């Protein structure tokens, strides 16, 4: 590890430092505001450095000789420093910052442990950021565990039976998924003799070696399939989705938001990097694999969401459906139909970005509204259009975006992803996705309908009574909801960033 690595890893280091400082502040009995501020400071610093590194790749800044040209590596080649990784670091950093902001009021419920809460969020963010840059299997595995274990603790954070169940379920199923992943990695390593993704690609492509390998290519395929299962768990694709509803419901709502956005983004980052660098030469129809998982995820997620009475469970199933839409994009990337040109990786990144603001807006608005009633059933949202007009409007915007109705970013994201899939000759999958959007309209708009048409519930406490004055929460709702519409009307900045991020990677 050289001195320049410090600079190249500065985003992760800043977040980690923020986490440690938050713990220290907690031990010093600092009040919650200080703890949150310290955490936010770490994230902001990380975002600044992320921007700096991006500018460095563009050649606009020159602070470090280790980063020449379009991409670099750090820590003996274990981590990639390219725009793809930086895009996700930015996305994860922004999400984590918004989550911290939105949970400031929420942490009052466990005030004495708010420092631990903050630190765990930051540690998970570090793990996700490392995941986005990992180009070596062991690094990836460690980063995956680093991102998952804090989330397990956070899922169980609020105490009580539901939370414990959430934590336990996440822990056990997550451990099984890691074990499967590790097994897959081991097989892959055994076949290729290296853990570095690019080295694996060379080895996979080297047909001359085939005769000398003990079990033939089946071992590799088995390894890859097991890795698909491991990552499928992370991104919550069918059939690896079993943990989602209970964990999402039991976890504190800001953590659910964090899980659904940042954790998923990191998962997709890994999938894209691993599959499209290491296994590209392997002659398997990845497009068909991804398309199959996509079809199953969309259909299952949407159908199951219809029946939900709890809004967090409904949104949990909806994230499964959205993993499906994202996989439609991945299937397009994997198809490389004509001339070997890759189609649409930038659309997947755009979708992740748009989905992040949308889902954060949805969950934050849910926090704000559920705070009034202490109830997360959809029925309890009745009449909120009148009693919490701004929050209800924000939630409506987010739900329209999740449905894919313009002028929201969700529409643009679907337009791009489906467009890529049509271009990749996957029109059947797009048709299925379109039908799924219609199904999803039913349950998303049911919430809107209840908020605007229902009468306030009878057991409601008097109007305007909110347990906490939550300016940071209001702020985070406003920022995300405005972003949903702004990016829907003018998607270009995000799309451009996504385009730059995938340059050179594919």
């Amino acid at each position: 590890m050289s001195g320049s690595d410090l600079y190249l890893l500065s985003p992760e280091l800043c977040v980690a430092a923020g986490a440690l400082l938050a713990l220290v502040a907690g031990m010093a009995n600092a009040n919650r505001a200080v703890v949150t501020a310290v955490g936010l400071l770490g994230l902001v610093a990380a975002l600044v450095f992320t921007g700096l590194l991006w500018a460095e790749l563009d050649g606009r800044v020159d602070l470090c000789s280790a980063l020449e040209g379009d991409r670099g590596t750090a820590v003996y080649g274990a981590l990639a420093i390219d725009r793809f990784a930086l895009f996700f670091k930015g996305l994860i950093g922004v999400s984590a910052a918004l989550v911290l902001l939105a949970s400031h009021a929420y942490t009052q419920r466990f005030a004495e442990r708010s420092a631990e809460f903050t630190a765990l969020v930051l540690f998970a963010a570090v793990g996700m950021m490392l995941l986005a840059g990992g180009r070596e299997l062991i690094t990836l595995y460690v980063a995956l565990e680093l991102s998952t274990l804090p989330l397990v603790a956070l899922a169980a954070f609020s105490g009580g039976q539901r939370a414990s169940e959430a934590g336990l379920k996440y822990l056990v199923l997550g451990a099984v998924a890691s074990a499967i992943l590790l097994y897959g990695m081991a097989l892959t390593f055994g076949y290729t003799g290296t853990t570095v993704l690019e080295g694996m690609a060379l080895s996979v492509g080297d047909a001359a070696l085939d005769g000398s390998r003990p079990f033939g290519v089946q071992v590799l395929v088995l390894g890859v399939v097991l890795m698909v299962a491991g990552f499928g768990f992370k991104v919550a694709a069918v059939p690896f989705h079993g943990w989602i509803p209970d964990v999402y419901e039991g976890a504190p709502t800001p953590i659910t938001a964090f899980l659904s956005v940042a954790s998923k983004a990191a998962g997709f980052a890994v999938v894209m990097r691993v599959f499209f660098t290491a296994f590209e030469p392997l002659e398997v129809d990845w497009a068909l694999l991804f398309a199959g998982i996509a079809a199953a995820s969309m259909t299952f997620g949407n159908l199951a969401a219809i029946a939900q009475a709890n809004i967090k469970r409904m949104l949990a199933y909806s994230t499964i459906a959205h993993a499906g839409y994202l996989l439609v994009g991945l299937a397009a990337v994997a198809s490389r139909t004509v001339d070997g040109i890759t189609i649409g990786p930038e659309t997947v990144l755009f979708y992740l970005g748009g989905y992040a603001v949308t889902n954060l807006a949805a969950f934050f608005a849910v926090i704000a509204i559920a705070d009034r009633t202490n109830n997360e059933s959809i029925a309890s949202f009745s009449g909120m259009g009148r009693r919490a007009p701004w929050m209800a409007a924000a939630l409506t915007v987010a739900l329209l975006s999740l449905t894919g109705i313009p002028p929201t970013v969700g529409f643009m994201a679907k337009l791009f992803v489906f467009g890529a899939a049509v271009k990749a000759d996957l029109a059947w999958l797009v048709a299925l996705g379109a039908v799924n959007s219609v199904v999803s309209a039913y349950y998303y708009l049911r919430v809107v309908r209840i908020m605007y048409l229902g009468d306030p519930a009878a057991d409601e406490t008097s109007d305007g009574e909110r347990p906490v004055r939550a300016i940071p929460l209001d702020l985070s709702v406003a920022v995300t909801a405005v972003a949903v519409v702004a990016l829907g009307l003018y998607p270009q900045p995000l799309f451009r960033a996504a385009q730059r991020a995938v340059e050179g990677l594919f």
Partner: protein
Amino acid sequence: MLLTATVFLPLAGAAVVLLLLGDNARRVRLFAAAVGIVDFVLALAVFLQYDRDDGGFQLTAKLASWIPQLDIQYHLAVDGLSAPLVLLTGLLGLAAIYSSWSIDKRHREYFAWLLTLQAAVMGVFTAQDFVLFFIFWELELIPMFFLISIWGSGRKEHSAMKFLLFTFTGSAFMLVGLLAVYFSTGTFDMTRLVGMDLNDLLLPSQLVFAFFFIAFAVKLPVWPVHTWLPDAHTDAPTAVSVMLAGVLLKMGGYGFIRVNVSMFPDVASAAATALAVLAVISILYGAMVTFRQSDLKRLVANSSISHMGFVLLGVSSVGAAAEHLSPVGLTGAAMQLFSHGVVTGLLFVMVGVVYDKAHTRHIPDLGGLAGKMPFAAVAFLVAGLASLGLPATSGFAAEIMVFLGTFPAHGVLTGLATVGVLMAAGYVLWTLQRSLFGPRRERWDHLTDVSAVEAVAPVLLMAAIMAVGLYPALLSDVFATGINEVLPRFTP
């Protein structure tokens, strides 16, 4: 600039209503009415500024750098087909605002949604970029959903959801279709697509044609995807029925001509007979169902299915034998769009007036209203007669052109379709007789005629009906400049 203003003025008005005006019902109403008037004047200016000698797309507003990576532009323009529809939207938007005077709950939201709706429909008729078109197309769903489900009556939530799911399903197909077009041609520019050969797409062009057709057929509506319409109409508040029947259905017919016929002439010719069959089923089925209605609103709603069938019939005339290929059928279809817009708009306004005063729409309960409400009766009568296609009304001009244009192509089917006109005469006259004339019931003695405010919308619409009826060239000339550009694409 003029087009941008016409499209976005109502949207800006909606924002003002929602954010700045406060809760004073009177102020909100007056402001909305002012926005409606200005937008109508703008729409009129668009219509008058459209140079019919020049033809083609005019008054273009373009901003190429919206989403340059995918060549998605902000691009508005009108041609002979859209200019009259813009006028229609302005006219009915104003009528809708004036028929909303009695809205008594949540008026701020109500007028905001109504204005948003108007902006969305204006956008559909003027957008020349496919994505922009689609955005406006979808944008219209949200206001409709709220307008029906909050201010409607009866099973309003059910109807709103049904409307939304039907339309959304249609547009999902359209999305796939327009993506297929884009990735085959590399452009979303509708004005360019009209000149291109779209027979060799990523997907079979018949399939893409079908995708678009489904989306527009739901909207028009064509049997068998019409079932949302009676529900939505019946349960919607008056002004929303006016907008729905008056302009929203027109989006479907507009789409047929703008996309299905103009961009896929070969497929359209091949499918012409099938379209004509669907049209005749819609016409006859709609008329038969209409006969059985005893609720005034349901009656008008179901008659719309029948009358919109004439639009599809006119569209199907493009399958005519080469020597008969003429713009008459398509122009008739376009005329029918406008005519039905003002006629049904007026019918719904009058149904609303009757319901406001008598609190019932059940036809057998009414009777002899003409004596107490002479003005309303006249307006109702004019609308009814225009609806059955009496000469000197716009309905006649439109239907006769449809029949003239379609007969050479589908003789038998056109003959069957004319039965629809007979049936229309039957149900319209029967309804007018039962509700307006005959002995008056005592319970209607207290009824009063329409007030000055309530008379604004009917007067405007009657003027439009008579003007077009007496001098159809007023519109048909403009429509023809749009249609004439399409026709050469059909190889004889």
